[in-house]
């Protein structure tokens, strides 16, 4: 998106205005606020939910198999039970922690490695850039689900391995984005200036390139969340995701699919959890992208009926 021209942007007309607090901005966008609340809730549940659960998520009772959601069986019976008679509510809470403990490290790993490599390659250009891009091509040319299948069958399908595979599979996305940004920035005046002062490459990358590329990279990362959760669930469908008795939302959907006709709540509720979380992440990512961009922030403040151009997904986002 082009920078808004300075004649219409109040960011330029009033350069010294203190930007409004981010929560005030957030409060004005009802959609983004709701998304933030949902995400915060998910994270809180993931972090602290297990403290209250005890063994509820694993406690089986084969006599209480497939109870529909109802008020008759106490708090943990609210959302019904699965085929092993475990509380679906407790499992959803437990699964939130597992799901996030896979998605978050996977996204962080690929973000860190991919961005570092990409910025380095893009800044230096030439051979280094070429090699990095070809590495990205190699990874992208492997069907990622298949690598996952091979690796997870050869090694144990532990959470650690799943994180590693998902991280490796997603590195090219960040690598390409970061490289493109760095390649564009490296010819800019301020980078040239820093270079003539003898600033080492690593410092230029850290101090000049990273801050500019970061918002885009973070947006891609937030949206990648969605991809990682869905892939994790596909792995469970093929039977090589998280291994029971651990449980993730993806595993719950995969295991519940055969009960879709008889006990919808087993597969539908975790599916909803995935969708709600990813939609919230997408909405919030679009919002954060605007809010962190000084040239775009003003768009958030339009009155509702005139609210203008808001990019939902940055073009760099690849899924």
């Amino acid at each position, binding site marked *: 998106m082009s920078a808004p021209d300075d004649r219409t942007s109040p960011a330029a007309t009033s350069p010294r205005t203190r930007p409004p607090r981010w929560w005030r901005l957030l409060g004005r966008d009802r959609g983004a606020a709701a998304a933030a609340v949902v995400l915060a809730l998910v994270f809180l549940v993931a972090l602290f939910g297990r403290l209250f659960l005890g063994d509820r998520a694993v406690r089986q009772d084969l006599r209480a198999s497939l109870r529909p959601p109802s008020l008759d069986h106490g708090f943990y019976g609210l959302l019904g039970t699965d085929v092993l008679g475990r509380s679906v509510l407790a499992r959803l809470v437990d699964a939130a922690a597992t799901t996030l403990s896979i998605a978050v490290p996977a996204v962080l790993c690929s973000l860190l490695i991919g961005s570092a490599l990409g910025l380095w390659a893009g800044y230096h250009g030439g051979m280094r850039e070429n090699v990095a891009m070809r590495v990205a091509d190699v990874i992208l040319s492997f069907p990622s689900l298949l690598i996952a299948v091979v690796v997870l069958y050869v090694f144990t399908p532990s959470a650690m391995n799943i994180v590693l595979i998902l991280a490796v599979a997603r590195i090219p996305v960040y690598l390409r984005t970061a490289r493109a940004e760095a390649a564009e920035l490296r010819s800019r005046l301020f980078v040239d200036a820093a270079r003539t002062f003898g600033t080492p490459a690593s410092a230029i990358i850290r101090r000049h390139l990273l801050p500019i590329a970061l918002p885009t990279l973070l947006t891609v990362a937030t949206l990648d969340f969605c991809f990682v959760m869905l892939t994790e669930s596909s792995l469970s469908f093929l*039977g090589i995701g998280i291994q029971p008795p651990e449980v993730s939302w993806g595993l719950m959907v995969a295991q519940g699919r055969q009960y879709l006709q008889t006990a919808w709540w087993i597969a539908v509720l975790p599916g909803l959890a995935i969708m709600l979380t990813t939609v919230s992440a997408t909405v919030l990512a679009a919002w954060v992208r605007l809010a962190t961009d000084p040239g775009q922030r003003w768009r958030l403040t339009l009155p509702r009926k005139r609210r203008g151009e808001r990019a939902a997904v940055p073009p760099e986002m690849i899924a």
Partner: protein
Amino acid sequence: MRSDRARTVLTLVVSGTMLVTSACAVANSDAAGDAGSAGGGTLRVVLTQEPPTLEPCESSLTATGVVVRSNVTEPLVERDPTSGRLEPLLATGWRQTKPTTWTFGIRSGVTFQNGRPFTAKDAAFSIERAVNSDLACNVDGYVFGDEKIDVRAVSPTRLTVTTRKADPILPLRLSFIEIVPRTTSTGAKVRIPVGTGPYAVRKWETGVSISLARNETYWGKAPAYPRARYVWRSDASVRAAMIDKGEADIATALDPVDATKDSTVAYPNNETTALRLDGREAPLNDIRVRRAIGMAVDRTGIVDALLGGLAKPAAQLVPPGVVGHNDGLATAPYRVAAARALVGRAAADGVPVKRRITLVARNGQFAGIAEVAEALQYQMARIGLNVRIRMADTATHLQYQLRPLPRGVGPIALLIMHGNQAGDAAFTTSQYLLSDGPQSTFGTARLDRRIAAANALSGKARQKAFAEVLAYQNEKVAQYAYLAHMRGLLGLSPSVRYRPDSATGDEMRLAEVRPVKAGNH
């Protein structure tokens, strides 16, 4: 430089090429094919997977056998799955003419689907091909071990089979060998088999379907449907949906969830599930721990909740109806407290009960296996053991199942499903109970001796001896914590009539399927 407009058009053409190819390709699928209903003359069967091959000598592979056996090819002798008795098929009868020699009478007037007449020479050829050739057929070894046999066609209607040692169940073993004409290749496996059966393979469209057509020169009773077609869907809910929708007449291996529907029929499939406990590794090397596991398993709970109430709690590896089944064995009592106490006593004696046991199970081996594994894990953990689950694919599972067993993997509790297709405990004991059995982790010398002795017997004595072997294993060895004798679930559309039996999973006789006549509901 081309004009700008032309460039736009070109871009559209480039990206549109795929659509055109796609659209053309849609037309090539078998749209005009025999998509009609069973009433239209085609019996439509949906399997779980595409057969890897239709080679008759591989028909002991379930996926191959279910299509080939008794439909396309036939054996000399077949075992009646309900009575367990052997019935003549392409043979007319058999006698043990010497201790090591069996003589078979061969049916005359039978022709192969390619028009050639069937003689004893074809029978001899088929046995040689399956057992002594380089094809590495699955039936070789599975049924015959490594003994060499001598087969002779004495006349067009007489066949003799000689073994080195006396083999009292040789006719039963021969029931696994499908008869093919002499012209069949011995160097390579065939893609489209030819046999004497009621149906001939018309077309195998790889990945899509296998079509059969009625063999109009069949020597026996003609089947009701002129054509049959197999398709495969790996997801059970899709197979069930195809029955509901009327897209298929028979669906195999449905989920227990669907057991309540009118369109499903349950049948015992001769499979038995159990946990094989590796008695060489602590803490499983302590018989108290192994016994405790047997007592910790809530068989009725698992059967009712996870297996749709279809299976029967088991106390031994072979189901009723198999020679050697011991009616006197009762399932281990479900007593958690007692089991926990047993483990506690073992722990007091220094057994490292907290060492982590890996429960290995195979994805998709039976419907609900993941849940069963979870239940077993939970129930074992409840008596104080430390258990984790590893769901494996077939290849990995086989590494755990077969000798040489993997090293350095710690104590393994392997969830196995054993199908005794032959109806004689000899196959089970030699594989699963011998101390060096290919699928056994340990045993005792006394058990080995008892098995060897039972193998040499026949008739009532054989039944009694094997029954004692099974009882002895439970009492003194306890390598297995039994789960259940399984039952399969078949989907049947209202327009067909078929009674599945214990062999249906391995050979589905399409000739026995009849249309429901109008007003006969």
